[in-house]
């Protein structure tokens, strides 16, 4: 007779082993190392919560300090490889195999460790993909998560930065895995129950809040005239004609410029209420002036942003908030929202090739994907119509019968032709290919595939790739907005002029935009302090962003 409850029994054993170090569900910080050694088994599949924002930092530190003689060969399945400890566990031999999706600050070290054989790589995912695999073939046996507070029954308040936690707990706890949470405090009653206590097995009082990176804060003081020009092109040449109301903005100064131009330039163009009303978006501080000016109706967020919490609570008509008043974010739902319910994604990248493939990978760095590929892809499963979606579909396939024609999501790459240190945005071949070769990967890490990209915006103009009818046209359209990069200078000038005549390429002057009008004075806020003042003092930026 087969035993059909081995997992439940294994969980019971883990709980029993852990209970020696716990009082009820509560584990003292000092006992954390012994506790982890007691509940973990070599070879376990472990989710150590962490993404591009929030981090279960205390649990990460403890895990990295375990004795590899006792705990080894763990298989880490987690959104972010962000803290040094996330890689220390591999360096020390506590963990061996890795499936992840984002590695921003550790991108150089992870590349080095991958090629040095310290890490056995499963795959680099998008957030949504990794979440999906939590439910199919990468279900964690132990989840080490982070919350703001817990009560004695283990009910968790995850607060504005809820992010990945519900997804991780859902997959782990309902499949007989163990959930351990670090919290900043244990309280009699949590402000709201984000995670029910019966899904949480142990709680560690870390005595301090989990770490959150202010990843989405862009100082308006650093926005350049060229970035403003690209933002003007986006608003007038793309948002307006397509009537884009539901969208996601990537991180970057170009999109920050767009946000700050809405109440000024956008207002002048009479676009209020016609564009940018609904977002799947983290609470970007640079969106405050547009929100205050009444542009935005609703925003759902992947996470929160450092310093924005009071503002978000005070704007519950716009943001999703709990009965306690604070923001409720959820990365999985927001990723789904970006994939299915948004008509546009616009973001920046590091390299674009002649087919329009883009990548943030350079030869020595693996930054992972995060969520951008979900936002920046055309969902084949979408069925509901909207004006921009249908119009983009018509651009792409004007001859198809309207009733059978798929719409298209607008997937827009925006940037300057040269980036930091004069590195060109446009390349003949992505560094990602060389990297894939070097690390023997089956797939080159492409952030957004060329066939998903609908438009490219640079200071040189807008290329509408939907209107290109063959690969040649596509290549010349890209070269045509590539400015003075090698790729741009190698353009076929006559063909580019023909594309321009057809509206495939639109230069600033074609849109009635004088580059000399791109002035910082057009920004609705020119400093972080302006953002704070625009929020009525509700936005409290972290100290490293202040100049007062």
């Amino acid at each position: 007779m087969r035993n059909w409850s081995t997992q439940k029994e294994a969980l019971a054993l883990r709980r029993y082993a852990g209970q020696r170090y716990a009082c009820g569900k509560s584990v003292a910080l000092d006992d954390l190392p012994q506790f982890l050694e007691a509940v973990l088994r070599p070879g376990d599949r472990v989710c150590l919560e962490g993404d591009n924002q929030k981090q279960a930092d205390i649990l990460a530190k403890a895990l990295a300090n375990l004795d590899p003689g006792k705990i080894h060969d763990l298989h880490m399945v987690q959104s972010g490889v962000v803290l040094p400890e996330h890689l220390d566990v591999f360096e020390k031999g506590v963990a061996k195999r890795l499936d992840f999706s984002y590695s921003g600050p550790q991108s150089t070290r992870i590349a080095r460790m991958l090629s040095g054989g310290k890490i056995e790589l499963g795959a680099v995912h998008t957030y949504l993909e990794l979440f999906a695999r939590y439910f199919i073939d990468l279900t964690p046996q132990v989840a080490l998560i982070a919350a703001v507070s817990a009560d004695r029954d283990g009910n968790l308040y995850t607060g504005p930065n809820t992010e990945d936690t519900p997804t991780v707990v859902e997959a782990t706890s309902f499949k007989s895995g163990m959930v351990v949470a670090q919290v900043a405090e244990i309280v009699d009653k949590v402000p709201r129950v984000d995670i029910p206590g019966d899904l949480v097995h142990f709680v560690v009082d870390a005595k301090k809040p989990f770490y959150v990176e202010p990843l989405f804060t862009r100082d308006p003081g650093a926005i350049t005239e060229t970035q403003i020009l690209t933002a003007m092109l986006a608003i007038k040449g793309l948002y307006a004609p397509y009537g884009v109301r539901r969208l996601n903005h990537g991180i970057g100064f170009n999109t920050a410029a767009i946000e700050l131009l809405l109440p000024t330039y956008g207002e002048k163009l009479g676009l209020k209420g016609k564009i940018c009303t609904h977002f799947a978006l983290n609470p970007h501080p640079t969106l405050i002036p547009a929100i205050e000016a009444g542009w935005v109706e609703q925003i759902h967020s992947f996470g929160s942003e450092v310093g924005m919490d009071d503002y978000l609570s005070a704007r519950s008509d716009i943001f999703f908030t709990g009965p306690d008043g604070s923001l409720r974010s959820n990365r999985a739902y927001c990723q789904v929202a970006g994939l299915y319910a948004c008509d546009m994604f616009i973001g920046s990248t590091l390299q674009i090739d002649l087919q329009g493939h883009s990548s943030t990978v350079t030869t020595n760095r693996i930054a992972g994907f995060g969520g951008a590929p979900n936002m920046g892809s055309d969902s084949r499963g979408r069925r509901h119509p909207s004006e921009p979606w249908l119009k983009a579909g018509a651009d792409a396939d004007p001859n198809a019968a309207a009733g059978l024609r798929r719409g298209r999501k607008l997937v827009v790459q925006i940037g300057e032709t040269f980036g930091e240190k004069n590195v060109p945005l446009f390349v003949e071949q992505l560094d990602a290919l060389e990297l894939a070769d070097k690390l023997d990967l089956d797939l080159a890490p492409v952030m957004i595939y060329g066939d998903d990209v609908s438009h490219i915006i640079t200071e040189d103009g807008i290329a509408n790739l939907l209107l290109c009818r063959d690969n040649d046209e596509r290549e010349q359209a890209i070269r045509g907005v590539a400015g003075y990069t090698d790729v741009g200078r190698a353009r076929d000038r006559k063909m580019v002029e023909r594309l321009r005549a057809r509206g495939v390429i639109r230069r600033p002057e074609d849109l009635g935009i004088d580059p000399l009008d791109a002035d910082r004075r057009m920004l609705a806020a020119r400093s972080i302090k302006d953002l704070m003042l625009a929020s009525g003092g509700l936005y409290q930026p972290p100290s490293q962003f202040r100049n007062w």
Partner: protein
Amino acid sequence: MEKLSFTMKPSTPATGTRARAIVGVVASGNLEVLLERNLPANICIIDIATAARGFAAVWEAVIEDFVTRRPAGGLHISINDGGARPDMVSLRLAQGVRLIEELEA
């Protein structure tokens, strides 16, 4: 530093009467452009001192477009460059030409 010099035959002479104008500042990713109206109306000389070596071809392309698109005849243009990107160079050149067109303040 790399020094470059281009003598161009622009399509249009610079307008206005100001003798000179200066825009921009030498900083990382920025440049200063000094324009002096002291050449025959059918030529434009551009002298460049740049911190970024090996970009002569890019400079040439930027300057060709500049003298084609903007009235630059008669101008001696001197550039001190702190490693500005081409888009910034084009912008400063355009700003310089616009400033020298203005009436003396």
